[in-house]
């Protein structure tokens, strides 16, 4: 039974971690424009990772 003494705190802190992650994602505006974000990545203009001429 002594395993519970550290398993329960771990379980709860994992849950808390998830909750904090959700709060952070809300604060950073990830829920402000779900439609736009869903479609924007289709058109993002990726710059090449390295420039061909530099080689």
């Amino acid at each position, binding site marked *: 039974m002594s395993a519970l003494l550290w398993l329960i705190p771990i379980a*709860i802190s994992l849950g808390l971690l998830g*909750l904090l992650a959700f709060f952070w994602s809300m604060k950073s505006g990830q829920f402000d424009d779900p439609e*736009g974000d869903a479609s924007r990545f289709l*058109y993002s*203009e990726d710059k090449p990772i390295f420039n061909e001429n530099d080689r």
Partner: protein
Amino acid sequence: MDKIDSTTTLADGCPSGLQDIPIQTLDPMGGHMDITPYVTHISDNKYSINLIIQGAHCAGCVAKIERGVSDISGVTQARMNLSTLRLNVAWTGGKHLANDILSALRALGFGAAPYELDTAQAQSQSEIKFLLRAIAVAGFAVMNVMLLSIAVWSGGTEMSLKTQSMFHWISALIALPTVAYSGQPFFRSAWSALKNRHTNMDVPISLAVILACSLSLYETIMGNPHTYFDAAVMLLFLLLIGRYLDARLRLRTGEAARRLAALQVTSATVILPSGDIKTVPETAIRPGDRLMIPAGQRLPVDCTILSGTSDIDMHIATGETEPQLFGPGDALYSGTTNLTHPLTVEAVALASHSFLSEITKLIEAGEQSKSRFVKIADRAARIYVPFVHSIAALTFLGWLLWGADFRTATLSAIAVLIITCPCALGLAVPAVHIVAAGRLFKHGILIRSGDAFERLAKTKTVIFDKTGTLTLGRFTLQNEDKLTPQQLKYAAALAIHSNHPVARALHSFHEDCEVNHVSEHAGGGLCGKIGQTVVKFGSAKFVNSPSSFEGTSQSWLKIGDAAPIVFQFEDCPRDSAPDTIAQLKAQGLTIELLSGDQQKIARKTAQDLGIDQWHGEVTPQKKMDLLKTRRSDGHYPLMVGDGINDAPAMTAAYSSASPATAADVARSAADIILQGDKLSGLPIAIRIARHAHRRVAENLTLAIVYNMIAIPLAIFGFVNPLVAALAMSGSSLLVTLNALRMTRS
């Protein structure tokens, strides 16, 4: 107005459901608006502005807009929000760049208008964020408390009392802060209801949660086996989801309605005391400002004429299609259109205006009668709450009389309160409404609030305003076949120089034809020279001809000394009107027509469209009285209108609708707004509302049947925490699934 009707040039097949909104130019009558007053100054030479974008609905649009705006030199950031259709642009340089951004957007094919966040909106946005956080906290608590509870339930006798007690203490440590945080929306609403001496659904919810928690805390301290922490947090979690859905529906439709309003901002030319002129948005006009109103412009505010005489198109105010002549000293209301001659006017405050202040008073009176409407959930609460609370009290007394101890009696009474907690009402009604609103949205119909469905579903009589609602609010030529091409050409050549509604009807017939010395006579007509011949086009009096035709508007063309020729015009019904009326009739509704226009015109429109009951020359007060009569007769009237004169009637009606092009007052009085200017949304809205109403009724029945089984179990003490928690989530799941059935049918 014709620009709005003709520019339905948007891409097909975009998923947002908004593509049928035509792009509107900021000022339909022309003139470039200076939007610099809307620019926010950030620091030094950094500025930003929020714009509403019209016509954007997919990834391609977003990319096109963001790239296009970023390409303007000086722009540092352009970020488009596709959910709210707002574009935020930041730049360095001068304020004036805002106007370049606007024209760049127009060149890309998108409509744009400046947009200011108001406090009400910021408030509802922060409310919804709080609800989301509350759901997250409650969700976290539900998962962890359940984890511990399941161990206690399944552990049975194997678990030592000490371990059980430890589990209860941990549950208490999680549940109590959660209830204090996530329960706030319910506690606040229940408290304010009790303070006003009535009850709502939040009263039993708050009571059940608080009692369950305090009892569980007591049991935990005493080391007893039964706690209800899991049921309390689960209850909050499920109810918060319902609350969130409801708030999101209101926010979404509120945003869309504000977007419409932002797009109808027009510009005005102010004459400064120095004599210089300046173009400003209409919101920047203050009472006492002197304004220049060119022919063809809509009046931005209520004002009195200082100098000039002109025909004014009053249909948005009074419902009359024929323009009227106004001169110095006369008062004009915002929304009407100056047609023929430039005017200098002085802006007046809203309250000082007799007509509008009268309308405002009428609207306030109407709104009071509307607030008497009680939401179905609250109506149920009025019966439900006393019933449930007396049963709980009786259970408590019954057990005491039976000889049970105080603790058993309390436990059973609280079990009754928990099991009867109106989860079904709290979750299932908003769930039905949001599904229904989503379907309406796809058809381009905005619904203001969830309870509008309840009112719309009861409609028995639909009452239409005529001008601008059933009809387009503009004239079309009726007797084209009786005119020679030359007559038409001459009339059109003169008409192109005027914004009078009759003249505008001829604009489409314009061919290349040179006219000299064109002059426009307010209240009369147009006069000009084609070659050597004097050509006149205007009223019967203007060309000295007797007027003789009934039911239509007419103008006369006089070429040289020849006898005048009549041109007949009519305000035509919208294309969608006959179909809509037929469909509404098929739904078993009675249709009536109300018009501020002349009796004979109202009669003709009614007959053309197959409407049996019509009333002409109705004042705003009479319209409202009629609606009140219909309402007290139990017809549950739905008023469809677009003008300022319709607004009091719309607030007096049981439910109301207006097209997106309606006057601000009318639109804000409407429960549903028909976008894309199509009346055909009306039968759809009624059908969906009726459907939603049936689902709500089913859900309520389900909840009642459910309680009838559960209450006896609770009264006789068979409900342990496990049964309570399962019963609660089971019933919520059932009603939610029933609500979602709507999407398939």
